[in-house]
């Protein structure tokens, strides 16, 4: 199995699949079986490949840091390579991507009726670029995938979204791009730093890890990278694109957006921003942690008062992803393990919540909480699954959400207990808004006659929501299955960063340095 370039196969399969789709005759009907089945098959095979990666991955501490490495010269004049490889952290995110994409495609079978072929192509291209983001070890290659992800998502929101879709799509792409381009400047700057130290250009992440970057440069580059990532996460106060994008996106778009794309931000912080600029990172960590506890509480409070289910789940994402950033800011073993775990858990449970919201809105064409009530009597099965996902989202012990949040708070407590005091509020608030949502939608009497004859889960819907609920429980019961492969990777990152001292910044000096640079 080692002979096969499995990683490239995983990235290329969806691309080849989308080319294949181009050749399939275009029958633009609501039930174009061929296109849909073919797309689903491709995404399932891709999932299979990511599982093969997992099976072939050596999680022992003595194994090479990056496995399944492939490297081909791409732009040799600037030391840019097609360089991919995965450690445990990347592996888990690849599996998450592989797992969620077929499920997201299945949710589209009812909700997406026009341009099914184009929709399928964009979904597959999106999957390929997300897989690329999580496996690139060349920072230029990483940026290409990172930036490219925006294009299919833009079209998914803009063409297949709800009423305000164009506004949401444009806001989404401009907001996230504004952050990314500054990171591009920093990436270019890094290659020049490498050039001035060693005499050759390099975008090789592992070589860039070894650079001693001057303090003033680290300061600004860390900010540039981090801005790109925290817009993606999104961290308060850069979260305003998220509710719009989520609410307007079609269900499969929301599932991928919440399930995978937000994780790109967390992954970027862990893989790039912190280990590349450890001193600046340690200096800024308290600021990030402050923003993240604000996000945790603010997201939860805003979620509580939303009349729209989808918006509620979107704001709950802001709150949950705040935990992820808190764990990253602590950057110790528990915090980082928790953050990584929380990313996976949030991907599964919030992905599931968006699926359920999508199913309800497919049936009723509304997502207003006040339109529902008493669904338990007509849809007992959906209610049961929703309860599982709700509890997982709240972080009930035994469910996946608990492990991540608990580890994060443990790590943060070791670092600075003050943040945990505030973050714990978020745990309570999440129980409030989720259980209140559950109560208003599913309990009580049916007050709206439209709800009286809603159908319960269909077979297709079981196929979507069943695996998500099962994995939610599974991750809570056997967390080590997922934590173990990530452990050596996280240990290495923690060692790398914690070997440094926080930057001692004399602000005027750093500012005048950049002013001098700008003035040149």
């Amino acid at each position: 199995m080692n002979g096969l370039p499995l990683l490239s196969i995983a990235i290329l399969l969806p691309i080849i699949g989308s080319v294949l789709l181009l050749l399939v005759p275009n029958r633009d009907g609501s039930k174009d079986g061929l296109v849909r089945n073919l797309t689903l098959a491709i995404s399932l095979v891709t999932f299979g490949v990511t599982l093969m990666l997992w099976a072939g991955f050596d999680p022992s501490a003595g194994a090479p840091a990056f496995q399944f490495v492939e490297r081909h010269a791409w732009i040799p004049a600037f030391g840019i390579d097609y360089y991919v490889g995965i450690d445990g952290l990347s592996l888990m995110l690849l599996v998450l991507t592989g797992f969620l994409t077929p499920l997201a495609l299945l949710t589209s079978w009812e909700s997406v009726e026009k341009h099914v072929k184009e929709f399928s192509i964009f979904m597959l291209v999106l999957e390929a670029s997300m897989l690329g983001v999580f496996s690139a070890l060349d920072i230029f290659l990483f940026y290409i995938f990172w930036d490219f992800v925006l294009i299919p998502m833009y079209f998914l929101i803009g063409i297949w979204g709800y009423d305000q879709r164009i506004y949401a799509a444009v806001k989404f792409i401009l907001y996230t791009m504004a952050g990314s381009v500054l990171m591009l400047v920093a990436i270019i700057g890094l290659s020049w730093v490498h050039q001035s130290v060693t005499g050759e250009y390099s975008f090789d992440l592992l070589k860039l890890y070894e650079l001693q970057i001057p303090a003033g440069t680290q300061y600004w580059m860390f900010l540039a990278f981090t801005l790109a990532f925290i817009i993606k996460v999104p961290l308060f106060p850069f979260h305003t694109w998220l509710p719009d994008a989520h609410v307007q996106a079609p269900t499969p778009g929301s599932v991928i957006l919440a399930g995978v794309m937000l994780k790109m931000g967390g992954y970027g912080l862990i893989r790039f921003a912190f280990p590349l600029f450890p001193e600046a990172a340690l200096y800024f960590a308290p600021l990030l942690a402050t923003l993240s506890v604000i996000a945790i509480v603010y997201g939860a409070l805003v979620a509580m008062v939303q009349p729209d289910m989808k918006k509620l789940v979107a704001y709950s994402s802001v709150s949950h992803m705040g935990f992820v950033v808190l764990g990253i800011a602590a950057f110790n073993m528990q915090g980082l393990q928790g953050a990584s775990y929380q990313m996976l858990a949030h991907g599964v449970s919030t992905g599931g919540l968006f699926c359920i919201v999508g199913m309800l809105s497919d049936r009723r064409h509304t997502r207003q909480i006040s339109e529902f009530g008493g669904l338990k009597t007509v849809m007992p099965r959906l209610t049961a699954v929703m309860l599982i996902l709700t509890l997982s989202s709240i972080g009930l012990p035994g469910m996946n959400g608990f492990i991540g949040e608990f580890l994060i708070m443990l790590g943060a407590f070791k670092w600075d207990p003050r943040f945990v005091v505030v973050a714990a509020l978020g745990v309570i608030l999440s129980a409030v808004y989720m259980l209140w949502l559950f109560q208003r939608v599913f309990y009580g009497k049916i007050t709206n006659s439209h709800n009286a004859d809603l159908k319960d889960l269909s077979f297709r819907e079981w196929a979507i929501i069943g695996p998500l609920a099962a994995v939610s429980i599974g991750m809570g019961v056997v967390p080590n299955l997922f934590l173990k492969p990530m452990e050596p990777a996280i240990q290495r990152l923690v060692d790398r960063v914690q070997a440094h001292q926080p930057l001692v910044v004399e602000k005027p000096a750093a500012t005048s340095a950049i002013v001098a640079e700008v003035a040149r």
Partner: protein
Amino acid sequence: MISSSFDAIIPMLCVALAGLVVLLAEAFRERGEKMPIGGLAIIGLVGAGAASILLWNRNATSFGVVTADNFSLFVNLVLVAVGILTVIFSSQTVDRDKIPAGEYYAIMLFAIVGMMLMGQATDLLVIFLALETMSIAVYVLTGIRREQQQSTEAAFKYFLLGAFASAFFLYGVAFIYGVTGSTNLDRIGSVIAAQSMSGNPMILLGVGLLIVGFAFKVAAVPFHMWSPDVYEGAPAVVTGFMSTGVKAAAVAAFVRVFLSSLEPMIADWAPVLWAIAAATMILGTVVGVAQTSLKRMLAYSSIAHGGYLLAGLVAGNDVGKAAILFYLAAYALTNLGAFGVIALLGTRERANDDLRDYAGLFKSHPALAVLMTFFLLSLGGFPPTAGFIAKWYVFSAAIGSGYYGLAIIGVLSSVVSVFFYLRIVVMMFMTERDARPVPAPITTMAYVGLALSLVGVLYLGVLPSAVIDFAQASISTIF
């Protein structure tokens, strides 16, 4: 020193000869007879391209004022590509608008001769000659639809302002001649370097006037006023030709003059060009947002792209020189493709270039909408297209010389530009179509041209290594 060899001017000769043949063909054409005049033009351009490739690495010179170094040959190849694509896109416009084919193609070929000479000239006076050859031909092309008021107005504006700018340029040449006693670039360079003239007010005045002349042709702020009107008034294919060919030629001469003979004074002119580049990038994108006509929008986008090119010039390092060449190639393919689509959608009565005209294009012309999307993404600098690599390359040059500020202005302005490129995409894909005149059926030939552009855009975006190496080799022999 003076060589009588004609080698260096062979590419220009090929194009000029083709122009003459085209004129003759038109003269002997019977009324109503169909003649593949565009084909003749393409033959001449292919010949020029082949000659440029054969001259590679030979550093041929002719008459002491024309050189065929790799730098100019790279520019020649870009111009050949511009020419061939323009001819391909023109056939439909020429038939539709009843433009006299012989005149049209001949003037276009003569303009290309002027452009090639601009890249190849090593004497300020010859550069001026080239500038005029190119400009006069382009003035005529702008107003080639004589019955259209807008077209004529555009041509007249362009001519008046262009004449002014040429005068400034000539005045600058005169000052530099007055101080250094020569118009030859090498000699000017050595005199300036030997006598460290950077404080001399006369030469500063001369350099300033040269900047005005070049900035006008590149459409850099604050000398950009003409370009939106002219780009809007000219037929879309001619606009595509101007926005790529004229810009490539002017930038090539700009780079040669400022990075060879005026290089010793870089500390004097770099801050000026820094300001011009920054203002050009900002104004081009910010004003572009407010446009509703696609041609005007792309005119402002083209101004902004001039700013990115100038950023490479300000950087002044080897990366910058190669980056400019790469950028020219990437930008030419992309922009020609975009204008090609606009030209194909026009009708004789209306240009159909309003943003509303593009509503629902994906439904009526899916292929054109997809092609246009690729070109717009490339203009906006998204991977995996040529535009992304080109932008990365120039900003890399700017950062390498320590101009972080310029790079940051550049990337942020490109985010703003994405906003208006996406407005077109929104129209094409996400808006319902309203009633509008149906354009003529699109010929296979036009699709071939668009496909060529797209292949180029993706090739430069996905496998840029060969062209990057080529661009680096192009600058290694000079400067």
